[in-house]
C-alpha cells in the first residue's frame, strides 16, 4: 500500500535525522508526548512553530550583526533564545551551533559571529528541509488514512 510505503519513508527519514545528529531524544519525547497525550498534530505544530521562530531569530541576529556597532549582548540574548527553542524541539545540531555562537558573542567577535551565523543558518535550513519533508509525509499518510492519525 502506498500508505505503508510512505510510512516507511517517514521512519527512514526520522531515523536518518536521528543518526545524523540533527535531532536528539528530546524530539522523540515530543513524539511520545503526542502519542501518549492524545494530542495529534502536536509534533507538527511544535516543529512549524520552531521553524518560524528560528527563522525570525536568525534574521534578527543577521540584522544586528549588520549594524555598525554590534550590540553583542543583544545578539547573545537572541542566540540564547534560539538555543532554548532548539533544545526544546530537540534540534540538537542547531543547539550545539548556538553554543559555539554564544562563545563568539562573549568574545565580541563580529567575524566569529558572522561565521557562526552562517553555520547556524545552514544547519537550520538543513533541518527545516527535513522537517518539511517529514510534515509532508505525515500529511500524505493522513490523506490516505484519516483514521490513522
Amino acid at each position: 500500500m502506498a500508505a505503508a510505503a510512505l510510512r516507511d519513508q517517514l521512519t527512514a527519514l526520522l531515523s536518518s535525522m536521528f543518526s545524523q545528529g540533527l535531532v536528539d531524544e528530546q524530539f522523540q519525547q515530543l513524539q511520545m508526548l503526542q502519542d501518549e497525550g492524545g494530542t495529534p498534530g502536536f509534533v507538527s505544530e511544535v516543529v512549524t512553530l520552531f521553524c518560524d521562530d528560528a527563522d525570525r531569530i536568525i534574521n534578527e541576529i543577521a540584522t544586528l550583526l549588520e549594524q555598525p556597532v554590534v550590540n553583542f549582548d543583544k545578539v547573545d540574548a537572541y542566540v540564547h533564545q534560539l538555543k532554548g527553542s532548539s533544545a526544546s524541539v530537540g534540534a540538537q545540531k542547531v543547539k550545539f551551533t548556538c553554543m559555539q555562537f554564544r562563545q563568539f558573542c562573549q568574545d565580541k567577535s563580529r567575524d566569529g559571529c558572522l561565521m557562526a551565523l552562517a553555520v547556524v543558518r545552514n544547519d537550520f535550513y538543513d533541518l527545516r528541509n527535513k522537517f518539511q519533508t517529514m510534515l509532508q509525509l505525515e500529511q500524505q499518510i493522513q490523506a490516505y488514512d484519516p483514521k490513522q492519525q
Partner: protein
Amino acid sequence: MAATQATAARKFPEGLRVLAVDDSPVCLMLLEALLRRCKYQPTMTRDAATALRMLRERPGDFDLVISDVHMLDMDGFKLLELIGLEMDLPVIMQSANGELETMMKGVTHGACDYLVKPVSLKDIQNIWQHVWRKRKLDIRNHNGGYNDGGELVGATRTKRKYTRKMRNDGDNYGENKENMDSTLKRQRVVWTPELHRDFVIAVHELGVDRAVPRKILRMMKVDYMTRENIASHLQKYRLYLKRISTQTGMDPDQFPEKWKYMNELDALKNYCENGRYRLTPAIASSSSSNPFARMNSASALATNGFLPTHSVQLKNSQRNMAMGTVGHGGSPGNNPVFQPLQNSSNARKCFPSGPSGSSFANISNGLVLDTDDSGSSYAGMFCKSMWETSNGSPSCHSGNSSANKSNNGVSAPANQFQVQSKFGFSALANQFPVQSNCGFSAPANQYQVQSNGGFSVPANQFPVQSNGEFLAPTNQFPVQYPEVNNQPLVQMNQSSTNHFSTIGNDYQFPDLANCSKYWQPTAPSMFPDLGHNDGTSFRPSQANIANINQLSSFAASSGQEPMFGDELHGQMSPIMSTISLSDFDDQMGSFNIGNDTSPAEMMHDNFSLGSDSNISSSTPTDSSFGSTFPDFHLDSPEMPAQMLNGGDEDGILLPVLDDTVDQQDLFDQLDENNGREKLGSGRCVRKGPFECFF
C-alpha cells in the same frame, strides 16, 4: 471513605495551577504540553510583565510559577525576586543555560528549582513537590504560631484542630488534604509597597533580631493580616537580608548595628523604587526617630553602591536614581533636606544581587582606605563601587584579584578616567559629604559633612544631597583651585592592614595641575571631624572640630580639553592621610562647585579620596560657614561666586556636577597646612601642598 481519600491522594498533583512564563513560543508550547500531560492547569504567557500582572491581579489563582531566566522584557531573576517578595509562591527557573553560576544565582534568588532546557516530562512531573513542601511548611508555621501563644483569629482555630488531629493520627492524607485546602483558602496577602514599608519600619523599630511576627503585626495595625502572613514575610525578608550580606561579603554579625538598619532601609527603598513604587516621604519621616535615620541617605546610597548589580545599573540609569538612594539626610530639625525620589523610570532591581563574594571583594578593594573596622571599610567599598561605576569597564568588577583591581582603578585615572555614570559620582557625593539637591539650603549652624552614612554622627549632619539636577547648576559656579600651581601630586600609599592594603602603591596624578586654571574659591567647605571607627562613636571634640581622618580631594576643572567632548573625565587619586585638626578654621578650605567656564562641556576631574575612615565633618556652631550657607542654592544660576570662605583654604571641598547629564561629582579636598598631622594607619608626610606619602 477510604476510596475517596485514595482518589484525593492520587489526584493531588492534578490540577496544580501553574503559571509558565517564557518568551520563546517553542519552549512555551512544549512546556504547556508537558504540563497538560501531567494534568496540571497551565497558564501560559510570553512576557514577564503580563505574568506579574496576572499574579498581582489574581493572587491565589496560582500554585506555582515557572519562569525563564532570560526574557527580553524582564530579567527572570527580577521576576523571581518580585514574586518571592510579594507573593507566597514557589518559583521554578528554567533556562537553556545550565551554567553553574546561573543556576546558583537562581537558587540564591529564591528559586525552588532550576530546570535546564529542554525540560523533560520527568522534571515537570515532579514539580508538585515544591507546592507540597510549601503547604507543609505553611502548616508547620501555623502550628508554630499557636505554640508561640500568638493571638489567633477565628478562622485559624479550626485549622488548629485539624493540625492537631493530623499529628495524632499520623499523616493521614485526608486530614492533610483538608488542612491543605484551608491553607489554600487562607487569604493571600499581597504585599503592597505601603505594607512592606510599614513592615520594614516595624522591623527596624523592633530590631531585626528581636522582631517577631506578633509584635510586628501589632505595630503595623493592619487588621486583615494574620500573624502567619507576617511570619512568612518576615522569613523572606530575613533571607533577603542574609543574602544581601553574603553578597557583600560581610557576615551580618560583622555589621555594626546601624549597618543592618541601613541595609534594610535600603532594601525598603529598593523595594519601593522597584518599578512601580515610589519612595514616599513617609519613609523618611518614619525613620527619623532613629538616630540612624539621618544617616539613611548616605547609607542607603552606599549600600546600593557596593552591590554589584547596582554599580552596573548605575551606568545606564538616569541620574535620578542616585538621588533615590540618597534619601534624606538632614537632621529633622535643621534641614528640610529630604526629597523623596521620584523615580518613575527607575529600572533598578528590587533586590540587587549578583555573584556573591567576589564582587564585594572587588569593591572593597577600592582605593579607599580603610581602616580598622568593618564600618570604615564600608566607605572603601563605596568608593570602589563608584569607581567601578564611573570606570565603566567590566573588568573592574569581574573576578580579578583585589590587587589588580585597585591598581586598575587607580591607574585608570591617570589615563583619563572617564566617568560615565552620574550615579557613581552622586554616590560619591554622599560619601563625601556633599549631597546635592536641597542640601545646600540647609540652615547651617552645623554643617556637617556626612560621609558614609553609617559612621558619622547622627546629630547635625548636614548632608548635601545631590541629584542630577543639582549638577547642572554647578557649572555656573566658578571653581577655583587655590593650589593650582602646585601640581598636586597625590600619592597614596596604603598602610592599612586590612584588605584594602593592596592599594598601597603610590600613585601620582600630575594631571591635577590641569585643573588649576579655572578654579576659584567659591565656597568654603568644611571638613569637620571625621569620626572613624564605626561612626557610632561621637567625638567629644566635635564641636570644635575634630579629627580628620580622611581626606578626599576632588578637583574639578572645566573642560579644557576639547578632546573630551561631552564626557567627563575624572581623575581620581586616592589620598590617604590621617590628620587631626585641632582647629577647625585652620582646616577649612574653600568649597568649590563646578565651574562656570564651560557649562556644557565636560569636566575634567581630579578626584582623590582619602581615607582612613569616613569623613564626617562637623562645623563648629559658631562658624561663619553656617550663616552663609543657608542661601546657598546650587540650583540657582546666580549663585554668588563666593559663598563661603572657610578661612585658610586649606581644605577644599568641591562638589562637581556636570550638567551634561551624565555626571555628577563631588569631591573634597582637604589640604592641611595648619593641621597637626596625626599618623594613623598610614604615615602622612607632607612634601608639598599636594603631596602626601603614606
